[in-house]
């Protein structure tokens, strides 16, 4: 019972020095924090990040740990016989990469099953962190075009509106990704994308492509809708993470407002 807290994975570690034990505890914290960081940056829900971090720590024998996750930072502390250790990690960029969320989830499952040592897990997580997007930039833009076209049909538009919506939707999504790389100001890329997408839709309509400008524009804007933020805001609020839920809800609202403003400018001009 005395050894309760740091015996996971090591057979007969009575001989270890205190330094080695401390080092192992810090290594476990690093693995937990790295897993949390990757998940949070890739768009996982807050409660899932907290849960995963605590599960990893538990699997390595840290029975009591606390993690506090907000969209902009992670605080993680573990309770052992030695003084409590706490680490803080700042999260500054957030993208959507569901492959990484599921990959870290899979690593966490393998850790729980006892298949990975601390250093193996750290290496696996590092390689997940470096993994590039599976789908290339062009394929993503093509997918955006496809969603725009599909929505024209789903919203009971006629077939001749599909092509202009696809073209304008592809342009809007292309810009939302590119502008975000050049100008890091939040919400600016969505504004520009909505502005350009709306203008493109209008000009395509004027050139005789399509018959229903409203449906073309709605189709164009669909790839910009912050679906992940809306879903996660609701799920976080339900799980009792009010801080994260409200923050994500505010981000979703401001993103929608940026899109709305962009399209409002187009409509004022035409």
């Amino acid at each position, binding site marked *: 019972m005395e050894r309760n807290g740091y015996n996971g994975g090591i057979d007969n570690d009575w001989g270890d020095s205190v330094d080695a034990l401390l080092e192992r505890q810090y290594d476990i914290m690093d693995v937990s924090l790295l897993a949390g960081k990757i998940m949070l940056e890739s768009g996982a829900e807050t409660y899932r990040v907290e849960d995963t971090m605590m599960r990893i720590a538990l699997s390595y024998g840290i029975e009591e740990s606390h993690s506090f996750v907000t969209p902009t930072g992670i605080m993680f502390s573990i309770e052992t016989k030695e003084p409590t250790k706490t680490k803080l990690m700042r999260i500054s960029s957030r993208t959507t990469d*569901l*492959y990484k969320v*599921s990959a870290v989830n899979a690593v966490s499952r393998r850790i729980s099953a006892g298949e990975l040592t601390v250093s193996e897990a750290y290496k696996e997580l590092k390689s997940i962190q470096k993994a590039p997007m599976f789908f290339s930039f062009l394929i993503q833009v093509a997918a955006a075009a496809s969603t725009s076209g599909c929505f024209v049909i789903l*919203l009971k538009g006629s077939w001749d509106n599909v092509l202009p919506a696809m073209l304008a939707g592809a342009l809007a999504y292309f810009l939302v990704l590119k502008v975000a790389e050049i100008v890091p100001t939040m919400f600016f890329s969505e504004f520009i994308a909505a502005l350009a997408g709306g203008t493109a839709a209008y000009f395509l309509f004027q050139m005789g492509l399509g018959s229903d400008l409203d*449906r073309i524009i709605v189709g164009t804007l669909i790839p910009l809708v912050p679906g992940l933020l809306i879903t996660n805001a609701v799920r976080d609020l*339900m799980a009792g993470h009010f801080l994260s839920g409200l923050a994500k809800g505010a981000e979703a609202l401001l993103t929608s407002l940026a899109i709305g403003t962009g399209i409002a400018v187009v409509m*004022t001009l035409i």
Partner: protein
Amino acid sequence: MTILTNMLFSFLAAASFGIMFNVPKDLLIKCGTVGMAGWMMYYFLSENNVDPLPSTVAAAFTIALIGHVYARVYKTPVIIFTIAGIIPLVPGGTAYRAMRSFVQNDYNTAINLAAKAFMISGSIALGLILSDVFYQLILRRKAPAGK
């Protein structure tokens, strides 16, 4: 024919969203089926003159429920399946018409439409919540414990 068209395009739309969110390749088809199921629920209810609000609740409920089942079967976080399905329900068209009315200084119509869009967003949230509660109360109790 319209039913088939709707099924095909809602499937395509959800799978394309999966690509934009970098969903693992082997899960894209499942993403598509979740999106299709949700949209068809919404489509059938609204075609039979059910109000958009209950239709949206039912569709969001369906999406999240299938998502939960898939998440358990394929041992993957549930959001991978739900996000792509939820987006078709987001009241983009209504929000757009509200914005257009605002720009045209037609505030009465604009507030009307904005309130409608807000209520539909609330319905999505309600559907998600109901599905989580339902899943935790009924399905999870039957299934063996463990993550």
